[in-house]
């Protein structure tokens, strides 16, 4: 198994390298440079020129790429010119927000998907099963932004159950219980939206796993030993079906990252996705390149995680 994991990580390195090269080339095509933001009517053009010279603006591209990538590896992505902050500091705050959102979403996702998947598989072709299949079909087909807007419209504005933007009410002190609750309250609606959209894969997988397991020998053995049917489901089938579902975690993370751009923009949630759209509109290129690189790294990490869990769960799967 270790061999598989190490091999999988080694495959990741060239992918990261090519991605970074692609981002570097894109960054070269972006108009302006980190000093454009500093230019004011009083700035001496010669001074800017001097700064450019010093920062290696006129070095050959491979040298620039090398400087950029070594700095990036140490977490130094330069300065954001709209926020006048180091990019790493700026992203750090936003990343924490996105992380909270992601954690709650994943929790809700499995909370919804596991019972639905198991029950639909157990009572196959029942009314419940058909409803679940229909639900997972709709949640698969609906685009992120349409569902987000409909949820925000109904639960946020019409019913006023949830706040419509932000992360926390300002009236609470940091660290108090009210602050924590207000924070969770703000994350709840976007997290539910995420969870509803992400359930499809887990439900369908779990449902087929349970249906397949029903005709397996170990289930028949358990039943003939006299174990009650409920216990067979909760102890035997459930455990065997859950392991492969765990492998979905990696894909869920990847899906979350892509969706965060839409969800955070719509729900006014200051995470990395919203920051990305803001930086694109504000042409804040050092932030853009850092975010694309980070998302790329996290996406790769997500698929790596999936493969590792898979190889633990099912030793037949080998990666060459």
């Amino acid at each position: 198994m270790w061999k598989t994991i190490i091999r999988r990580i080694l495959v990741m390195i060239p992918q990261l390298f090519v991605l970074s090269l692609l981002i570097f080339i894109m960054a070269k095509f972006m108009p302006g440079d980190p000093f454009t933001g500093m230019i004011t009517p009083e700035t001496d053009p010669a001074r800017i020129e001097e700064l450019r010279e010093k920062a290696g603006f006129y070095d050959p591209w491979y040298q620039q790429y090398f400087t950029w990538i070594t700095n990036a590896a140490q977490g130094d992505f330069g300065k954001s010119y709209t926020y006048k902050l180091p990019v790493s500091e700026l992203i750090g705050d936003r990343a924490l927000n996105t992380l909270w959102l992601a954690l709650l979403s994943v929790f809700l996702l499995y909370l919804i998907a596991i019972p639905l998947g198991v029950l639909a598989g157990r009572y196959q072709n029942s009314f419940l099963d058909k409803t679940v299949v229909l639900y997972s079909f709709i949640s698969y087909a609906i685009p992120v932004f349409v569902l987000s807007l409909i949820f925000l419209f109904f639960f946020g504005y019409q019913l006023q159950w949830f706040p419509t933007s932000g992360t926390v009410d300002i009236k609470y002190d940091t660290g108090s219980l009210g602050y924590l609750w207000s924070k969770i309250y703000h994350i709840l609606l976007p997290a539910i939206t995420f969870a509803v959209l992400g359930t499809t894969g887990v439900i369908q997988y779990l449902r087929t796993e349970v249906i397949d397991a029903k005709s397996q020998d170990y289930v028949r053995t358990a039943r003939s030993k006299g174990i009650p049917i409920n216990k067979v489901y909760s102890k035997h089938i459930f455990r065997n079906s859950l392991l492969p579902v765990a492998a979905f975690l990696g894909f869920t993370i990847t899906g979350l990252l892509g969706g965060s751009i839409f969800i955070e923009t719509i729900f006014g949630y200051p995470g990395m996705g919203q920051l990305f759209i803001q930086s694109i509109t504000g042409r804040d290129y050092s932030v853009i390149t850092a975010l694309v690189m980070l998302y790329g790294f996290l996406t790769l990490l997500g698929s790596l995680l999936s493969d590792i869990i898979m190889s633990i769960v099912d030793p037949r799967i080998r990666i060459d």
Partner: protein
Amino acid sequence: MNEQSGKLIIETELSASSPPTGLQVIAREFKKDKLAMFSLISLVIVIVGIYIWSYQIDQAEMMRVSLRDKFAPPGEKFFLGADQGGRDILGQLIIGAKNSLTIAIAITIITGAIGIIIGLVTGYFGGWIDNIFMRIIDFFITIPSLMIIIVFVTIVPKYNIPIFILILSVFLWPGIARLVRSKSLSEGSRDYINASKTMGTSDGVIIFKKMMPNLSSILIVEMTLSFAGNVGIETGLSFLGFGLPPSTPSLGTLVSYATNPLVLSEKWWIWLPASLLILFLMLAINYVGQAIRRSADAKQRLG
């Protein structure tokens, strides 16, 4: 045309003795599944209706700003109300839907052609060709393509619709290629392919004349589902403001007015019809795709 009709006659004559052909199986599946039939018929009516209606609309007249009709609610003058600039929502909906559908169709055709050819060839030959393309496909699948598409859209000079289609196609063919490859890989080891090889049939003929027809139902399913996906991606990008250029309304542009909280909470007629139309298109196309997929798999068929 002649050859096709001749083929059809032979097929109908043989139908008593031979197993039903792909199209017949699909037709039977749709007869059995009422919801799929309904989806297909309503989808055809909506799409054809949008294209015909869009020619009746004077786009320049429609896009003229008239501040007196700002946020006019649905009524006699505007069936679905008006937007911030007093422009008719219904007209924008039809034109937007036409643009969105046209672009989705174009992307589906381009990515489908590239994906199918590369998938079939790599799956059939295997070896180093397969290896090289799989590395490329793996790379495309693991990068944050949505973000990179957005960056490309913003840095490309002279941005227009063909460039938008091109950018999306570059990032969307690998998904199709990967699926077609895995199917052609297993199809390639079948006896009839080996028999053709032994008889000395050229590789090109085997791939496109023998293997492709046998995979046709899977290819149709894949194209249908990717069409739905492309509608979603185009409207999503236009929603964020990185899709069609501002001069060309899309369904996503109409939905994007809802990012203004006032419009979202009170002027539902601006964004809700477009959202529901997107929802309808996605559900119907996906449902049709799944019905075809079922008919392609003998174990899941209803009919």
